[in-house]
């Protein structure tokens, strides 16, 4: 697992989501990237059931259960600012059993699907973020395989992002600031995806049941 940066690409003026994705993929192919299959990242939201809340009336925490096609045998469970658990796929079945403690928020499933591209040591994934039947945005993930320390290669990643995103290049992800010399892991990528999905949810102003 190399250092990964997940960002959102705003939809171009006067164009649909599909057309913007096509523009991006064409730019990548002109750069010399090779198509290498598809990817999918999805996220479901759970909130702690009311019955388990203490007398102080503390509000429930949100838990996100995510899957990433890059790690097909794993399942990630994370809290907003809390730890991230990496479990195997049986965790989904476990969540069904924990219905008393965690209830699924309605219409909360959000996912991004798209194609993977390989350019030298970079792995680029451009996906359409959909919630239900509607497309809400575009996610761009760039992974630089050889490097495992985030702070080392941010300038390098930035240069690469600029070469095909142009002016829409994002700033450094917050996870990079937290861990200075620690080895980057898949959990950090899932945190970035969770933040992206939350941002997209808020953008459209669609109320998601269960959100505070």
């Amino acid at each position: 697992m190399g250092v990964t940066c997940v960002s959102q690409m705003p939809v171009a003026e006067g164009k649909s989501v599909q057309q913007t994705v096509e523009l991006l993929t064409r730019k990548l192919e002109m750069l010399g990237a090779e198509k290498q299959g598809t990817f999918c990242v999805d996220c479901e939201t759970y909130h702690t059931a009311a019955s388990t809340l203490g007398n102080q009336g503390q509000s429930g925490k949100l838990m996100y259960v995510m899957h990433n096609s890059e790690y097909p045998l794993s399942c990630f469970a994370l809290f907003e600012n809390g730890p991230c658990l990496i479990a195997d796929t049986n965790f989904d079945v476990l969540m069904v059993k924990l219905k008393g403690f965690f209830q699924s928020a309605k219409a909360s499933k959000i996912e991004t699907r798209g194609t993977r591209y390989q350019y030298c040591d970079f792995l680029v994934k451009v996906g359409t973020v959909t919630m239900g039947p509607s497309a809400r945005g575009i996610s761009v993930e760039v992974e630089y395989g050889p490097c495992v320390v985030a702070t080392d290669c941010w300038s390098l990643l930035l240069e690469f992002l600029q070469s095909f995103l142009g002016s829409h290049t994002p700033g450094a992800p917050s996870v990079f600031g937290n861990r200075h010399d620690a080895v980057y892991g898949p959990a950090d990528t899932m945190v970035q995806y969770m933040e992206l999905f939350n941002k997209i949810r808020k953008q459209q102003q669609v109320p998601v049941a269960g959100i505070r």
Partner: protein
Amino acid sequence: MADVLNVGVNLEAFSQAISAIQALRSSVSRVFDCLKDGMRNKETLEGREKAFIAHFQDNLHSVNRDLNELERLSNLVGKPSENHPLHNSGLLSLDPVQDKTPLYSQLLQAYKWSNKLQYHAGLASGLLNQQSLKRSANQMGVSAKRRPKAQPTTLVLPPQYVDDVISRIDRMFPEMSIHLSRPNGTSAMLLVTLGKVLKVIVVMRSLFIDRAIVKGYNENVYMEDGKLDIWSKSNYHVFQKVTDHATTALLHYQLPQMPDVVVRSFMTWLRSYVKLFQAPCQRCGKFLQEGLPPTWRDFRTLEAFHDTCRQ
């Protein structure tokens, strides 16, 4: 085949002898034809017998004549020369079935090819010997008498000495750690870990560096049985490039009499890779060139350059 001059065979007489054999064959067949035909039809029995006998005698005379002619000619033909220059391989050439077993022509081709190969190899070794390519201090080709006594050879060093040198270098740099093992005989195998950037597997031959393979920090350097994997390449292009540069470096740093200085210089050069992903190229100022960061480190100044930007 054999030269005409060497043969000693009178070719003229030879061809005449062949035609004489043909004449003899035809006269012998005439004899048998006559016998087969039997007596011709004449008026009296005596006449028939006489004619038959006369005819028969004529034929026998012609056979005799032809046989004498053949004997005369065969004496003129002479013997082929005994000094056969081809010996056993020449006997192969007498085999007439050229299509199924072209042994002789293949033999000739193989011989010509090996002669040419020997000639070219001689030329190549002459040219190569002009440029000394040895990194060790051993001198080949000097006879035992002329070699001065007690010349230390750097190819045979006690393993303890190698261990000492390596452990001293290990303590030189804080971000570089070297682990030494000897899984295959007396050659040392070092696993050098540089920060959290890369790992290098160095295969040594006494104190000379033989090969260096560079892999990523998160790549697996061990095989299934737990031994160091010294053969497989890295999965990433950048580290494959750095492996090539490391091979160039170990050929560049050469000092036949002081191999420990060589190892120190090599490790100093390797240490400059701790900022592989952070340093921009000194010439073009960018980080990426065709997807690769600056992978070249100058041998003297240790500055970072792209492989295509280096002077």
